[in-house]
Structures are given as C-alpha cells and as structure tokens.
C-alpha cells in the first residue's frame, strides 16, 4: 500500500475554480487561463504514488507547481479535483474530502512539515518551538518538553534549548525545524525546500544528516527541491514538474539517463553524475570489444588483453605478454590499497565515482562482472562521455 497516493490531482487557487477547470479541460495553458479570467493553476492532473519509507523528491523550477502539490498533501492548498489519499493505519484518508476534525487528526498525528524559511516562532525558545506541534496535539507541558528535549538531542542542539530562534545560525534553525517535525512521530514528512536557504556546505551536511536519520527512522518523505543534485543525492524516486504538471517520474538514474524532454535534459546537463550513474549504464559491452585470437583487447596501443573462458569468465590478463594481476573489488574495500596495473573486476552496479577512483589508482580500465561473467568494461572514453553529459545520447545510439 502506498503511503501517499495522488490521482489526477488539480490545484486551482482562487474563487473561480469551475471555470478554470473547464478551461483546463479544453487544453488551455496556465497563462491563457489567467488571461481568460480564470485562476492560477497550481497543479494539473498530477498522479503519483509514494511508497512507505520512500523519499520522493518533487523537482522543478520555481513556479512549476512543486510546492503547490506538496501543500495539497496536508490540506494547506485546496484540492480542486482528483484524489489525494494518505495512509492512516489500515485505511486511506482522502484529504480533499475529509472533514475538519479528520484533517486536523492527519496534521497532528500523521503528516508533519518542514519549511523553507524555517517558520520558527520568534517568541518561543528553541525547546518550546520543538514542542509546538506536541502542544497542538494537546500534550501536557512537562511531557512535551521532555519529548522535545529528546528530539533536540537527536539533532545535536540540546545545549541550545533555552535560546531563541534568532540567536541560532540558519543551519541550526533548520535542525530545530526538523526536530519539531520529528517530535510529532508522524510517519509522513513534507519538506518544502528545507535546505535551499542554507549555504552549500551546511546544506550538504544537513542532507547527510537527513539521509542518516531516514535510515534510522524510516519515514515517508515528500521533498521539494529545485536542485537536481540534491534530488539525486537523497531521492529514492524523483518527480520532475514543469508548468503545473509532472512530466517525468522515476529513479534518479533513469532521470539522468533518459530525460523525457529538453527541460529535464537541461537540468541533467548541470548535475554532477558521479553519485548517480552506475557502471552498467556507462560501460562498453563485452560483445563489442575487439578480439584478437581468443583474447579481448582492452588497449591496442600497449597491447593489454584479457582472456576469458568459454563461459565468459575472466581467466587472465596481460600487457605486452607480461601477466597483470586481477582483483575482485567489492563496495567498502579501500581503493587506496589497490596496486598500480591491477585489473580490477567489480559489479556493474558500481558507482561512477568509485569506478573513476579505481581507474585513477590502477591506471587500468575497470572490468565489470555479473555472476562472474564479464559483461563490459569502463574505460576513459566511457567516463568522458558521462562527465560531458553525453551519456544519454550515447546510450541511445
């Protein structure tokens, strides 16, 4: 069962919803609808499933509707049409159709939120800010403060509990925001560009902390970002939005390898592929390698060859007739310990960053084995392709 299930959702702001929806059905664009006297369309026909324990990142430029969609999930934005179901125990609650009390129950018990500009109450201490949501739940003062203290310790700010928000740096303020959301013990977390207002180092640090916390707490997170690098780093899945619509939804690697249109391609071209791409999508297939006698040629210039058994296992390697060492590498092994001129064999799921490090360390291409059978190699050419953002055109060719 999905934690959040969104089907054909439209969000229209204003008091002229019917007309705007009709215009939308006639295929008018957002601007045309505004010109014809309709309202601002925030989200149009969005459908997305977010599984339990997943981090789903909504990605897009400002004005693409990502925040509008996020805010519909806890009812801050109106749901004009379609269904938005959020899991509550055994049942799914339709946020658009439920009554006030149910919506409040969902907000206090099931869904909590982290804001871009922190949205901390300036008249409350850090501790009472963290306890704010618990106060809304109706928890007593002693109890909620004790619990808030626990969450402050979790984000490493317990020594700041009696300060006011403005006495903290931006990064610390957002940690307070995180602690406030975690204090609710709700399974679903909405994060609206939580790290965008922070400087790059702090941002990266908080991303790591979030990933680490997520591994421990296993929340379902809907995360809004305009930064594809951030999305690729933390997202289990990414949904890319443009002009109020979801135009692509998939795993990070799929987005990078197969952008659906120029808009996504533009995003991808500006990202760092090192953390996202895997050996499999970059490699030169074993079948396409040049053969010489019964050897596979890795490098013509210095005559580096490998020989394989009939079933495709790598048996030995040589350069200009001299044998080269072979090494099986697994994730977690220290790459710095590899000897130069070793031919390293790894799984095709190796990250591009690791593959490049191995290549740099050994000076040799990386062999990719699946079930002990050679499926392809990663050589300089493959790396350059990826770094120049040509991987999707290359794989299509």
């Amino acid at each position, binding site marked *: 069962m999905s934690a959040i299930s969104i089907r054909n959702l439209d969000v229209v702001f204003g008091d002229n919803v019917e007309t705007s929806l009709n215009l939308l059905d006639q295929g008018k664009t957002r601007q045309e609808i505004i010109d014809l006297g309709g309202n601002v369309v925030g989200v149009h026909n969005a459908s997305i499933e977010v599984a339990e324990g997943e981090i789903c990142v909504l990605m897009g430029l400002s004005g693409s509707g990502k925040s509008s969609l996020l*805010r519909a999930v*806890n009812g*801050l934005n109106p749901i004009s049409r379609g269904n938005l179901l959020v899991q509550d125990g055994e049942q799914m609650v339709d946020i658009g159709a439920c009554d006030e009390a149910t919506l*409040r*129950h*969902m*907000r*206090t*018990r099931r*869904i*909590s*939120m982290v*804001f*871009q*500009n922190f*949205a*901390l*109450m*300036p*008249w*409350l201490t850090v501790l009472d800010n963290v306890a*704010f*949501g618990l*106060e*809304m*739940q109706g928890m007593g003062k002693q109890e909620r403060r004790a619990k808030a203290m626990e969450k402050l310790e979790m984000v490493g700010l317990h020594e700041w509990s009696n300060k*006011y928000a403005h006495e903290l740096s931006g990064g610390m303020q957002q940690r307070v925001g995180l602690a*406030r959301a975690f204090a*609710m013990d709700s399974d679903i977390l*909405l994060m609206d560009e939580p790290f965008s207002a922070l400087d790059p180092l702090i941002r990266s640090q908080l991303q790591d902390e979030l990933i680490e916390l997520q591994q421990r707490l296993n929340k379902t997170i809907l995360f809004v970002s305009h930064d594809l690098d951030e999305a690729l780093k933390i997202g289990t899945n990414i949904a890319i939005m443009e002009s109020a619509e979801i135009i692509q939804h998939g795993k990070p690697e799929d987005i990078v390898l197969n952008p659906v249109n120029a808009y996504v391609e533009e995003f991808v071209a500006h990202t760092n592929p090192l953390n996202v791409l895997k050996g499999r999508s970059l490699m030169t297939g074993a079948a396409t390698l040049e053969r010489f006698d019964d050897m596979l040629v890795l490098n013509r210039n210095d005559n580096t060859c490998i020989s394989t058994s009939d079933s495709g296992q790598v048996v030995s390697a040589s350069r200009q007739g001299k044998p080269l060492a072979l090494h099986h590498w697994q994730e977690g092994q220290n790459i710095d310990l590899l000897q130069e001129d070793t031919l390293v064999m790894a799984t095709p799921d190796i990250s591009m960053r690791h593959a490049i490090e191995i290549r740099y360390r050994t000076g040799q291409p990386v062999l990719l084995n699946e079930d002990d059978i050679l499926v392809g190699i990663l050589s300089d050419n493959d790396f350059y392709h990826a770094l120049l953002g040509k991987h999707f055109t290359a794989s299509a060719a």
Partner: protein
Amino acid sequence: MNWITEHKIPLGSWMEAFVDWLTFNAAGFFDTISVSLEWLILFIVDIFQWFPPYVPMILTAALAWALHRSIPLVIFVVVALLLILNLGYWQEMLETFVLVLTATTLSVMFGIPIGILAAHKPRIYTYLRPVLDMMQTIPTFVYLIPTLVLFGLGVVPGLISTIIFAIAAPIRLTYLGISKVPENLIEAGKAFGATPMKLLFKVELPAAMPSIMAGITQCIMLSLSMVVIAALVGADGLGKPVIRALNTVNISQGFEAGLAIVLVAIILDRIFKAPGSKEEG
C-alpha cells in the same frame, strides 16, 4: 446660488432628533451605564485614596523596576510623584490616573477583539476604517455635546468621549499586528494541526504582541491627552485646575497643574513603553 442657501439640508436637526430620540427611548440604558461607570470610578479612586500616598508611590516604583530594571527610571518616578504631592495635586492625580486606567481598560477590552475581527474579515475593516478616521478627526467638543446629553454631567461623558477618541489606537494596531503575522508562521500553525482558536492564541496573538502593546501605550497617551477636555464636562482630575486657571487667568495654577499632567504622562509612557522586552530572559 440663492436656491442652494435657501434650501439648507437640516443635517444638524436630524442629528439632534436622533439624540433626542435616544434620550427619550433609551434613557434607562444610558442612565444604567452612567451610574455604574461613575460608581466604579469613584470606588477605585476611594481605594487609592484610602492608602497613604507612599503606598501607590512604592507600588509604581516597584512596577517600574519590575518592567525595566532601571534605577534612573525608579528615581524619576519617585521624585515626580513627590513633586505632585508637594504641589497639592495628589487627589487630582489619582482621579486622572483612574480615569485613564478605566478608559484604557475599556478601550483595550473592546478594541482588541474588534481589531482581531477586522484582521480576519477584511470586508469589515473596509467599513470600519472610515468610522475610525472619523472618531479621531471629529473635534472632541462636537461629540462631547451628545455624550453630555445622554450621560449627564460628571465623569462618565468625559470617560465615553475619551474612549471614542482613544479606542481607534488599539483597534488599528491590533488589526495591523494580526494582518502582518508572517504567512509561514500561520502555515506552520495549520500544518501542525492548530484549531482556529489555538491558531489565534498560540500563533497570531503572540506574533502580533509587540504591535498590540504599542497600541495599548498609545491608547494610554491618547486618554491622558483628554483629561482637560473631560474636565469641561465635569470629570474630576488634573484637568479641573487647568480649566479653573484658564477661567481666572491664573498663570501659577495653570503652570503647576500643567506640569503635573506632563509628569503623569512621562511616568505612564516610560513605564508602559515596550514592557518586558526579551533581553531580560
């Protein structure tokens, strides 16, 4: 043009007819208000008078210390009150103080809820605004006349006129404070499941508190500025010696009574200006 001057619109007569109608039909209502307010004010004045002067003096100094932790302010408060006592205006000072206190309390009691309502329903504010403007711009003497007719001579018409003049401050500043609450704080409140009541008391009012406090301070000052006018219709207090001095061209009495008013104004202003600021915590 003669036609225009010959056919005068009887605006004044209409107003007079309306006030007459009120006096005739709602005399009981206005009398009840008048009697109970007068009784309340005299009762509070009596309580203060029952104490020897040093008790209110120490209490005021203690309040100044509690709110501001400033020794110069405490010294000033004590010296100023001693001077008023010395000039012989202690009784009048107490009466003025009680009048200001009552007017401010009533203004705040009605003004803050009205301000909150106006902030939540912008439509109401569009109608309210011209009324507030009018209440502050119509010369005080003009509405002193009907209040005099409705409530009779004494402290109550002075009190009502003072409230009419001063209530706009808490209404406006409450409205301003509540409508200026940052949108993201409201969203945070809603996102964590606040009921409308909790949103008001836990988010909107605390966020608007500096503005509301400014409104209350302003209200105190506006009320104080009405004491002389209130004295015209028979309200006791520091205004009376001023009026008397004016009528008898008595420079020394006018100066002394005026000085006492200024001292009360400074004391109230300094004590209630941004009390309990956060730096203390």
